[in-house]
């Protein structure tokens, strides 16, 4: 197994072959060295212990998410001479602290009610059935591009109320914009692409917004336009920013959850059989996939004051990278952490983060994964990854396969 080959790599290189393709040995070595480890090259703290990572996520008081001030701020400002782009990015509440975050999140939450998400279950079920058809009887299909890509984008597009046949367009702007923040360094070209995407997104969304203002529907765009708190509503720019945030927070992550999940079941075929026999396990199986190989490796914060984390002295303005992917495999928190066990319960994984920024889309992501697993396990007796080596995108943030060739064996 790939995860066991390398264990001598450089602990400071977060983008090494080992860190990217065999992260669990890499994180284990880091955690064993120190669960809160100073990384000279990244120039910040790398947190890999469960207690420390979850404490970090919950401490929004001292660990800031703000990308527009502190040590990340300079980088972002330098890269984005374009004030329109910066202005747009600064409306994304995931990268803000209270009080802006609180106000924005509660307005968006009003629109994004869990009940409105549950309405989507029927539709997700239907989509899963349609999308699974082409998987049948083939020697190999790329599960990631042929199935996992489509489901979340269609679901989120329909939920927002944008035409789902324009999903490639939607995917393109979300990719370009996500690249700005997720990838570091000051690549001018990346900024230019992001600007162009933002312009296209605006062009695309403006008429939709105008229409919903006149003829509100049962969709998220309408709900965002009319959500109100203390007499205040979202501005048009804020609605657009939040729509874009939903798309890029929700599509790649859910796609990766499904692909990483299939790759995990391939390594633990008995768990696939178990789920086939007992659909009462769909909920815990979904949580276990989130824990075992979730879509997000880790996320950055910076310290607003001096404090201690896991026995280390964090200094004001230090950067802190919280790796939930590592926390979720910490033997201090999970018994037999490197085994996929779909009966595991309770399962306090940190795949959705914790604290005030905990993923708002978690009910939607869970629903899609549950429906996908429900149908695929009834239809396919066995799944087989038919690819020698799994390769992952070289980023610190997302755990994203480049492709996943699978043969689906029918019963």
């Amino acid at each position, binding site marked *: 197994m790939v995860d066991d080959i390398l264990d001598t790599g450089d602990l400071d290189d977060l983008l090494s072959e080992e860190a990217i393709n065999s992260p669990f040995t890499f994180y284990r070595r880091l955690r064993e060295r120190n669960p809160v480890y100073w990384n000279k090259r990244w120039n910040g703290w790398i947190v890999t212990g469960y207690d420390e990572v979850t404490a970090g996520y919950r401490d929004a008081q001292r660990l800031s998410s703000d990308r527009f001030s502190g040590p990340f701020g300079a980088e972002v400002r330098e890269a984005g001479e374009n004030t329109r782009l910066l202005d747009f990015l600064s409306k994304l509440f995931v990268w803000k602290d209270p009080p802006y975050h609180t106000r924005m999140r*509660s307005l968006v939450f009003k629109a994004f009610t869990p009940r409105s998400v549950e309405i989507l279950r029927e539709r997700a079920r239907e989509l899963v059935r349609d999308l699974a058809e082409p998987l049948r009887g083939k020697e190999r299909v790329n599960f990631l591009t042929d199935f996992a890509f489509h489901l979340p984008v269609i679901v989120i597009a329909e939920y927002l109320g944008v035409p789902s046949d324009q999903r490639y367009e939607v995917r393109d702007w979300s990719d370009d914009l996500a690249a700005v923040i997720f990838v570091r360094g000051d690549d001018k070209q990346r900024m230019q692409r992001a600007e162009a995407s933002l312009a296209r997104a605006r062009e695309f969304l403006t008429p939709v917004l105008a229409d919903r203002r006149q003829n509100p529907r049962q969709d998220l765009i309408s709900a965002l336009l009319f959500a109100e708190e203390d007499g205040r509503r979202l501005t048009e720019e804020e609605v657009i920013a939040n729509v874009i945030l939903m798309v890029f927070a929700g599509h790649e992550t859910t796609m990766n959850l499904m692909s990483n999940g299939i790759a995990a079941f391939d390594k633990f075929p008995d768990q696939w059989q178990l789920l086939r026999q007992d659909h009462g396990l769909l909920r815990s199986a979904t949580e276990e996939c989130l824990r075992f190989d979730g879509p997000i490796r880790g996320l950055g914060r910076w310290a607003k004051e001096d404090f201690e984390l896991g026995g280390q002295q964090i200094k004001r303005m230090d950067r802190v990278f919280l790796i939930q992917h590592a926390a979720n495999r910490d033997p201090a928190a999970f018994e037999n952490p490197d085994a996929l066990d779909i009966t595991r319960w309770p399962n306090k994984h940190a795949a959705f983060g914790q604290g005030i920024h905990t993923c708002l889309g978690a009910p939607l992501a869970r629903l899609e994964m549950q429906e996908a697993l429900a149908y695929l396990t009834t239809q396919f007796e066995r799944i087989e990854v038919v690819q020698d080596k799994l390769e992952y995108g070289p980023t610190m943030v997302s755990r994203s396969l480049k492709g996943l060739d699978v043969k689906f064996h029918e019963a």
Partner: protein
Amino acid sequence: MADDPLPRAEIDHALCVGVGECIRLAPHAFRYDKQRLGIFKGKGSGYSLQQLEDAEASCPMQAIKLVPPAAE
């Protein structure tokens, strides 16, 4: 209908991580205990069924379960 008793909420502390979504959504039904885990403090009024349902569905750890008021 108006005085149909509201359900109670049970919080599984094996799951709760104290994020506090429940408290944010239904401040009169939930509070933190000493360990900063969510607990149900509801006395049957001061909150709505919708608030309880929203809390149940929004808890990131799926730790909240609504149970119908005991049939007397």
